[in-house]
């Protein structure tokens, strides 16, 4: 039998992990883009807020932030609903997981994007403006594609870290790979074997993503001449 009958359970866990990671990636990419533009804006207040966010989040361990947010979002929400005198909203743990992970990794993506935006040569932007492009079009046609080339290695790194960080969500009660394999191991008395299976699934995911990332990096580097060594 496939994994002694625990195959479907583990498959569901794997799917939950992938879903969680991809959704968090998309949301944190968005936060990262917004954060980077705040950090590069000329408004001192916005810059300060973004700097505070990235410094604070990056100096506190992700698990601590997870627990802090996980327990407190609900309490805060309860207080708001009580104050508004409406019915209590119970957040689903999956959504809480996505929000917390995105909030944490948004800070890392902010730094990645800030560095990448700053690496785009000024001349390109000036040339685009000289062609009469609107600022939005400059962003879409010149700044963004160029920036992605510089940001990709960082994005890849963050993605790999994010995938591995999703292993922690079982601590806040989500049924991911870790939870599924631990449950399977405990009820079949083969904890060692099933933990290895979990590790192998993570290894497969990270291997696959590093292959995709290499391909993407090559794709975005089309037309860039490297130095011959």
């Amino acid at each position: 039998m496939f994994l002694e009958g625990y195959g479907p359970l583990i498959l569901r866990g794997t799917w939950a992990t992938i879903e969680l990671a991809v959704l968090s990636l998309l949301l944190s990419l968005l936060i990262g883009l917004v954060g980077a533009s705040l950090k590069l804006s000329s408004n001192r207040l916005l810059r300060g807020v973004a700097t505070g966010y990235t410094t604070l989040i990056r100096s506190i361990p992700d698990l601590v932030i997870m627990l802090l947010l996980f327990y407190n979002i609900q309490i805060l929400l309860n207080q708001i609903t009580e104050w508004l005198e409406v019915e209590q909203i119970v957040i689903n743990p999956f959504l809480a997981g996505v929000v917390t992970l995105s909030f944490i990794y948004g800070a890392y993506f902010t730094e990645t994007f800030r560095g990448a935006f700053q690496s785009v040569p000024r001349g390109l932007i000036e040339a685009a403006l000289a062609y009469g492009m609107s600022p939005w079009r400059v962003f879409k046609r010149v700044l963004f594609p160029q920036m992605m080339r510089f940001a990709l290695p960082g994005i890849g790194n963050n993605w790999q870290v994010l995938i591995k960080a999703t292993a922690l969500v079982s601590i806040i009660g989500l049924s991911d790979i870790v939870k599924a394999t631990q449950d399977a191991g405990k009820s079949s008395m083969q904890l060692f074997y099933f933990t290895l299976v979990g590790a192998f699934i993570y290894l497969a995911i990270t291997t696959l993503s590093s292959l995709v990332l290499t391909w993407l990096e090559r794709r975005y580097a089309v037309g860039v001449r490297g130095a011959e060594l």
Partner: protein
Amino acid sequence: MIEIIQDYWQAYLWSDGYRLSGVAMTLWLLILSIAFGFVLAVPLAIARVARNPLIRGPVWLYTYVFRGTPLYIQLLLFYSGVYSLQVVRGNQLLDAFFREGFNCTVLAFALNTCAYTTEIFAGTIRSIPYGEVEAARAYGMSRFMLYRRIIVPSALRRALPFYSNEAILLLHATTVAFTATVPDILKVARDVNSATYASFEAFGIAALLYACIAFVLVWLFRRFEIRWLAFMKPQGH
């Protein structure tokens, strides 16, 4: 807030009454894992850049597996997985070692950070300026002396900025230690949370403590860099 600090400051900082806990425990874990990881990583990094694939291959596999899986899974494997094996329980020495959550935690952390550190050191060994190696050869140094006097010291110095990152990441990673019943800062915070239900204060204090340790580490590594990377700076008169 004040009451929690008054009641639990000792547990948060160094002792919960009969053993190390809180900041002291986290630092002790960090120091042990970094020390074991570092000592193992230097020879492994040299093996990682070896020309012989039979030496290079196993080290590559080790770093690949340990960097490709989450530390939490590795900890679970060592803490609950290994101890569920009959072979381990049967052997007195292994039984005594794996029964202690602390030992399993240090083992998992050291192996994990060692994998990352090996890759860092291997990277800086590979990027050593060829002139340095050629000059050493021209002096007639043997291979061993070449490594001892030229390659390893230079590679370790140039690895410092990356190594400081790894140390911070390891500090963040030590938070999973509480799942193996090690009373680190987060374990204390969880206990405080379940005793007082003041989760914001309980975890907020933990977050502040971790941030302080991270800032101290950053400051410390900056001092190290000023001292040991002085030769990389542009020279003035």
